[in-house]
């Protein structure tokens, strides 16, 4: 188990280091460069995702069938998806050029999608569409657990 964890950690860390080296920050959206460092944040996402995945895996093995665990698993799945989505978003954000963002006086008003990467980036900016449901499922799971005696 520990060995597996170590393997996963090594793999994850290597992937993120590579990613950070090739990314180019985009001013128009929130970035995690600067003092924080994108790599750090991306590693955080990966750890988050890894943790959720690990929980999912354990839950799968231990077969908890009582009420609430199903919703919790959905939460984990959604948060896992969200992690990958936001991870991708952060990664793609670095490759987005300024021309992709159409500004007005008040700021960015539109985004030019020219390829699948752009589309994926735009979609990653809508991550709350996954995050909010995931929390709702967490809420539902807690609610069901609490109802149980």
């Amino acid at each position, binding site marked *: 188990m520990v060995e597996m964890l170590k393997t996963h950690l090594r793999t994850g860390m290597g992937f993120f280091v590579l990613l950070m080296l090739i990314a180019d920050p985009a001013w128009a959206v*929130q970035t995690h460069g*600067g003092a924080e460092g994108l790599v750090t944040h991306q590693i955080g996402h990966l750890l*988050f995702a890894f*943790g*959720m995945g690990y929980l999912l895996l354990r839950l799968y093995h231990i077969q908890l069938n009582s009420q609430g665990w199903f919703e919790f698993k959905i939460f984990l799945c959604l948060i896992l998806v969200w992690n990958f989505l936001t991870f991708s978003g952060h990664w793609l954000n670095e490759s987005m050029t300024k021309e992709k963002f159409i500004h007005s006086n008040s700021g960015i008003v539109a985004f*030019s999608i020219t390829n699948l990467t752009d589309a994926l980036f735009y979609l990653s900016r809508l991550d709350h569409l996954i*995050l909010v449901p995931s929390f709702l499922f*967490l809420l539902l799971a*807690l609610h069901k657990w609490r109802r149980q005696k």
Partner: protein
Amino acid sequence: MTVSWAPVIIIDIAGSAITLLTALWCAVLSQKWTRQKPDDIFRHYIFLLTLAIVLFAISRSFGHLAKQLLLLNGMGSIWKQISPYSGTINSVTFIVIFAFSLYFHRFQRIHTRIEKYKNNLEEMIALRTGELNETNLTLENVLNSSNPLCITTVDHVILKANDAYWAIWPGITEKDVKCYVSRPGPICQTEECPLFQIKAGQKEVFRETSKEIDGVTRFFIITGRPFRDLDHKLIGIVESFQDISLRKEVELALASEREHLAVTLRSIGDGVITTDLKGNIVLINKVTEHLTGWSQQEAIGQPVEHLFKIIDENSGIPCKSPVDEVLDSGKIVELASNTALIARDGTQYSIEDSGAPIFNKDSKIIGTVLVFRNVTEKRRTKEELLKVQKLESVGILAGGIAHDFNNILAAILGNIELAGMFVGSENKAYPLLQTAKKASLRAKDLTLQLLTFSKGGDPVKKTTSIATTITESTNFILHGSSLSCQFTIPDNLWLVDIDSGQIGQVIQNLVINAKAAMAKGGEIRIIASNLEQDHPAKPPHLLDKAYIKIAVEDDGCGISEAHLEKIFDPYFTTREKGSGLGLAIIHSIIKKHHGHIEVHSKMDEGTTFTIYLPASEQHRPMIPTSIETTHSLKTVQARILIMDDEVPVQDIARLMLTTCGHEVLVAANGREAIDIFKEQQKKGKPVDIIIMDLTIPGGMGGKEAVVEILRNDPSAKVIVSSGYSNDPVMADYQKYGFRATLTKPFLLEELKTALKNVVLAP
């Protein structure tokens, strides 16, 4: 393709806000869920994980909201400055969440184990609880099925009590009931209190208590034992209450029965002594105390021989202890008939006795019981009876010969007397005839005395005052003597139903004895007194009625102890000239009067004879009898019919009467006399006087003949003649129709007197 950026902004803002709120709600629910089971480590884990996620959500939502607001307001530069912080916080929360996630397995495993342990523990607890409940139920059942029981703390608070206890002593509804409130009593909070005793170190305490339930007092015995905790520290007392009411009732009944038996034993009229196997006294009753002079306290534990000293009454030799005989033989043993008990003060009691073994339920001898009775009086009575029987034998003999003897004497005496008359006083034969006459008169007296013993000597009783009889009889004997007599006779001396002649004879004989005992002179004292029915001086064997007591005391030579027992025997005398009949006759007369005579005498000090005679139902003193007037006698020539079966008596009577100038007719029996009487009446020569023998063997006697003669001639004058001078007919002749009596043998003068009395009689 150009797409609007607005959805990005809107969804970012709205999503952040919703996420923030949802996250906060999750935090609240998670906390509540955890609090539902605070000891559930897994819930705590989920709670922490949720908090980390919520923290992430809050951090991110605030970051995104701040970003959107700053950008929308053209403050991108500011955002640029703070975004690293926001991002870092997010990154930190990622790491925290990651860290928590990694521990999921451990927590889950611990949780599983704990749950397993918990389940096992719960199962075990359930099992043990079940067992405990079962045990508790059993204990409760046992507790409630047993006697009243309560556990009290050292502070007197009743910790636990069963239903039986509460049913008797109230307080179940109260809290912290004190034992002295529940069952107050005189020993509460004193040193006698069982709790105090247990606290003082006693291992077991027994007390008795009682409680009135439904009007009935029930008794309980309390058994108190220490109540200790697991460390063996004394924390109270366990008291059980055993209902001993029934036992108490039985004990009371037994005690009552024992008391009843003891009272019965002590009230028994016979003496009772019980001993153990060693012959030591276990119990004596009141009669034994009285007879032996030992109290029960003194006697218990003493060897029976110390208290029960018995001797042979005749020889004075100590008898063997009946206890030893009983223990040796194992059977009932009776003492010899002449056993006497020597009391502590030396008094001797004649006793009848029997000893018997006492067996236990296994038929083993555990002791002996002696039962004896004082038969001193009984023996005395028996001796008295023997004397009476002796006298009766003499009486039967005397009665048998007296009749014939008197007839013979009548002939002898009559002839001697007539012969004396015929020869004259100057004839040489006259003194001889006088001597013969005296001897005949002595023979007559002897016969008369003998007749006293016979049936024919039954007293002819009349209610009279005995005072005159006493004084006259005494003075008659003492006339011309140097002795004096002091009479102490109260005026109110009760009347008695007596034959004055016989009682006079008694007094005379007693005075004669006193006179003989006081040859040198002196004073005789005769004391008469009344004895009430319950007078203490009255001998116990007398009837339950009033008596008069006459004591004749002298200061003479006294009677020896050896002679005292025999003085009432016929023909026993210590005097040379005594006939030995005087006291025997006295005894006989007194017995025939249903009285009693006692004698107390001490050598050289004197003798006292005490007579007890039943008082008449008419206690009032009798009116003095009228003094009989004497009448001058005058000679009467008469036709006299003599009826007697004895020819010598006929002859001498005829001779006496013809000598006196009378005409005499003779008949041999009553029938013949009647015939002659009638025949003479028919002839015009009626018979003036008839002298009839009372008893004619094999023929009609005077008693029957007079009835027919008087039927024929009520004015007929009939004299009854008999050798039985004490015959009731002789004593009460008028009742039978006779005018006078003539006791055979009779002197001429007596015959003349009888004839005169008939003639003078109305």
